[in-house]
């Protein structure tokens, strides 16, 4: 175990600092992007545009919180967008029974979907990719069936249209909402027993089991929570964009995953957190927004997005290796 002794002796304040430096790779990318944009475009660093920037990714951000939980639990939820869609559809379809009811139902639907995923992945231990792929199809189908494929419009809802599109002291409520969700999930992960156990389960489910952690419940929990969050996101979404069409939410899925991964939450589980996801979200938002205000043609936007994703991840991987040297 001589190499172990090595590291024991070799850790020091300086190394700690370098470690910090490398561990913050994504933060630096974010700052660099931000500064560049300030110089490139005068329209970028305006309050209004910054609000836009976040308003546009708010829904994705909320979903990303849920996805982060799932990914830390060594899973992935390919049905998230479908859950969002299903919740939104059910939300609109029963709005005549009053807002409270429809909100409750939308969230309940999300939870149920999450539970179905969680049951098959956590309890039955079926492969998460295929399960969520299949349930994603099922949820989409269900929303088709209950909406009979109709296009739906949400009536303006008092509270929630407020979240969606208005602001307090010029500060968009939807962003406040996003921040709140992030803080809650962040605390859940860092400061609660459940959170600690989730990390344990994500890192090594066997050991977690021996430590008296009911991993299958924990894993199941992440999917249920993700469903819940998708339900909430659905309510917020309908309040921002009142017209719901099945399939409209499908493109969100890969964006959400991209955000989480951009932040540096590893798909291998047990690492990362909301803080990283927040950074990922900011980077994602800036890239989208910049390309829009620079009026880059759509085709090239795709190209650039993809390239940035890959470069970012490469950079992060590079730093992870460096970081390990200083572990």
């Amino acid at each position, binding site marked *: 175990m001589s190499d172990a002794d090595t590291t024991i002796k070799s850790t020091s304040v300086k190394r700690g600092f370098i470690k910090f430096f490398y561990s913050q790779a994504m933060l630096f990318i974010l700052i660099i992007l931000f500064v560049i944009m300030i110089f490139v475009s005068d329209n970028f660093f305006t309050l209004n545009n910054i609000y836009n920037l976040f308003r546009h990714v708010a829904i994705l951000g909320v979903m990303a919180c849920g996805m982060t939980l799932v990914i830390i639990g060594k899973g992935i939820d390919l049905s998230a967008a479908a859950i969002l869609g299903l919740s939104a559809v059910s939300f609109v379809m029963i709005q005549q029974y009053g807002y409270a009811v429809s909100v409750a139902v939308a969230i309940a639907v999300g939870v149920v979907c999450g539970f179905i995923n969680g049951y098959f992945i956590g309890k039955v231990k079926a492969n998460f*990719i295929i399960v969520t792929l299949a349930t994603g199809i099922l949820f989409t189908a269900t929303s088709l069936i209950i909406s009979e494929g109709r296009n739906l419009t949400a009536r303006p809802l008092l509270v929630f249209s407020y979240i969606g599109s208005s602001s307090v002291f010029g500060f968009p409520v939807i962003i406040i909402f996003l921040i709140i969700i992030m803080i809650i999930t962040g605390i859940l992960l860092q400061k609660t027993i459940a959170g600690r156990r989730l990390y344990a389960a994500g890192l090594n489910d066997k050991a977690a089991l021996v430590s008296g952690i009911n991993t299958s419940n924990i894993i199941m929990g992440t999917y249920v929570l993700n469903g819940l969050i998708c339900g909430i996101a659905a309510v917020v979404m309908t309040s921002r964009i009142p017209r719901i069409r099945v399939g409209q939410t499908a493109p969100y899925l890969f964006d959400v995953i991209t955000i989480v991964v951009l932040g540096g939450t590893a798909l291998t589980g047990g690492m990362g957190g909301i803080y990283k996801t927040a950074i990922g979200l900011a980077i994602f938002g800036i890239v989208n927004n910049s390309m829009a205000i620079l009026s880059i043609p759509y085709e090239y936007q795709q190209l650039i997005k993809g390239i940035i994703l890959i470069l970012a*991840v490469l950079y992060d991987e590079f730093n992870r*290796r460096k970081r390990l040297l200083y572990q």
Partner: protein
Amino acid sequence: MKKITNFIIDQKLIIIIIVLIIALSVEDKSFFTVKSLASILEHATIIGIMAAGMTVLLISGSFDLSVGSVMAFTGIITIMLQKPLGLFLSVLIGLIAGTMVGVINGLLVVKGRINAFIATLGTMVIFKGFGLALTGSSPVKGTIAAYQFIGQGQVFGVDITLFYLIAIFIIVWYLLKYTKFGRNDYAIGGNILSARLSGINVNLYTLYYFVFCAFTAAVSGIILSSRVNTGNAVFGDTTNLTVIAAAVLGGTSLFGGKGGVIGTIQGVIILGLIERAMVVFNVDTNYQLLVRGIIILFVVVTDAVTSRRKKLDIEKGVMEKGA
């Protein structure tokens, strides 16, 4: 009783296939003709060929989301180059272009050490964008009539594509069973460490598998673009997951080390039969999704159950041997 359930679960693919075939031939008198049976496979060609490539990649423990984009991209390149370069060269370059994506994927994964999911997610987006940029997001039309034979030609009264499918599956089957390419595939997917120690150049072979997967996607791209005599960047937007589903339906593990094309072809046939059933039974389009979802879910869940039982049996086996 338990025996029966076991049998059903182990042979589920065959059973599903038989059930579907019976149901179909009852409903559709013309179903049990060579032509209609062949058409099941003909229609499975494009997904099937990619699924074969995906199987190889999955066995090595990797993953490729970019196959759909590669397919579309290859088609665009080939069609665009027809006028200047003529049939042969355009197809050749098309194939090379598509296969290059595999090289990029492979390098990102083995050299860049990026998770395959992310790497191929990135290339997926990039090459769709590339395709859109090349075509100005409007379809490009084929100019050489002969080209269409590749995807539409008929031989012995069945589509020529059928033979591509069969050929590819035989080739992949052979590769997997009888060549270093295939055996190392299982070794790398099964235990990467011992693969290294046995002098297998893991990175190189992993690269090969990405390239091979992209190559099959490129072939599908040629067939598709020839079949519809058009190249368009939006083709294959939804293909990748279908392809992976087909391979996994066939029992190839997403974690590598086990699987094969025999299973994959069954998976492909099942998807094909479902497609057909949708039409024959005139299933309301809203429910078509549902059926697909349920079948995939059923297969993956039963797989989980069986694999866990197998593990138990092994433990028991060990115990008896140990004592």
